[in-house]
């Protein structure tokens, strides 16, 4: 069976599963209309971001987080430079809800578009900037997501087995997030931790040195699957009905399969870069 045929069958199966579940469980489900609506949050503030991919960022930054769900269950989610997950623009269908759980069929950016530029010394001893990873397309995938809300604790599982763009063979992206919130006077404190799995196909695509790099002396590397682990603590304070003061600290320990790549080993040694990702933000947000 051809790759494209397999992909179409998988997409249809996931869609049918979602729609059939919606029909089968219709009586038990929570009123879909109750979940319609959304919000848009635009923030402006200070951001510190150190990671292996880009030079350290330290200064003014814009943040955007939004979600809107229609009465029929279709939704759109956007997250750019956000203090939460940076998943870009995603669309989905919320097909089943209970008191505690929401089930969605959704697109997901399993890996953002990645370009890494590093300086290499050429044959004549001159330092030249060289693009070591140039993957301009993000890994847009399709998957099933279950989100559980239990008072102040949230859990979310996601499995995405279908790559929507044809950049490489289908891989699997999966994630598990757990978050808990506390209220201290009018402050909201959140602690979140998550683990993200990326299969070999995804990590091979981004982290195996290209033929050009290998001919320039970078050793070959076979990337395997791997898990990223993230922890985040954030605090929010409502200044008015629309304006929030927010701050957060976030740390991601990348999979060994990523950090062992000769590309990341080399680039993480560059000043202002690091093998892990650390992000700190202090911002004012306007919630529409």
């Amino acid at each position: 069976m051809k790759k494209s045929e397999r992909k179409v069958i998988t997409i249809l199966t996931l869609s049918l599963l979602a729609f059939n579940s919606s029909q089968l469980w219709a009586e038990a489900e929570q009123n879909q209309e109750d979940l319609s609506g959304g919000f848009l949050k635009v923030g402006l503030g200070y951001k510190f971001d150190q990671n292996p991919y880009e030079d350290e960022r330290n200064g003014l930054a814009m943040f955007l987080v939004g979600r809107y769900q229609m009465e029929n269950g279709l939704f759109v989610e956007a997250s750019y430079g956000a203090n939460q997950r940076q998943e870009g623009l995603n669309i989905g269908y919320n097909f089943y809800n209970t008191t505690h759980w929401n089930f969605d069929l959704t697109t997901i950016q399993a890996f953002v578009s990645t370009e890494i530029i590093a300086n290499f010394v050429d044959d004549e001893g001159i330092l030249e900037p060289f693009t070591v990873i140039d993957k301009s397309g993000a890994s847009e995938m399709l998957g099933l997501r279950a989100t559980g809300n239990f008072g102040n604790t949230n859990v979310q599982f996601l499995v995405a087995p279908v790559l929507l763009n044809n950049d490489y063979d289908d891989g699997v992206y999966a994630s598990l997030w757990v978050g808990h919130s506390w209220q201290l006077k009018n402050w909201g404190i959140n602690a979140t931790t998550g683990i993200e799995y990326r299969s070999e196909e995804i990590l091979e695509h981004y982290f195996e040195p290209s033929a050009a790099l290998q001919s320039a002396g970078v050793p070959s590397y076979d990337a395997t699957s791997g898990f990223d682990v993230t922890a985040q603590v954030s605090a929010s304070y409502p200044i008015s009905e629309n304006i929030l003061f927010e701050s957060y600290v976030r740390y991601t320990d990348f999979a060994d399969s990523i950090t062992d790549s000769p590309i990341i080993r080399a680039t993480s040694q560059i000043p202002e870069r690091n093998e892990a990702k650390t992000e700190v933000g202090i911002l004012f947000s306007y919630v529409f």
Partner: protein
Amino acid sequence: MKTHSKATKSLNIFIVFVISILSINASASETEGVISISPKQCIALNQGNLCYVDIEITWSLQEQGNYCLFSSQQESSLQCWQGKRAGDFAREIVAKDNVVFSLKPQNSKIILGSAKLEMAWVYKKNNRSHSTWRMF
């Protein structure tokens, strides 16, 4: 040079943003009538959360007398004044719903004036939009 002017422009936008936030907050302390309350609103993060606010109530009447201040949160008076025509009261209020404060003559049910502390919130309850997503 170009980077510098870009940074200055961004800084200006940020300053305007902060000033507009402060001016919104400042407008919450107007006075009116016999009894006035400041601030008039308590803002919680989520609808249904307990909201904490330090309020200050001031009252003034033309005639001296014995007056008591009541709130919708409790049956007994918050404070009584003897032989006064003005007074003030400060306390931290913790509430989920609007709180109405009223001034009455001592041993009477006549309301001479009232003021409302309104509850407000950023994220509405029963809307999936933030509860499932904002956390992450």
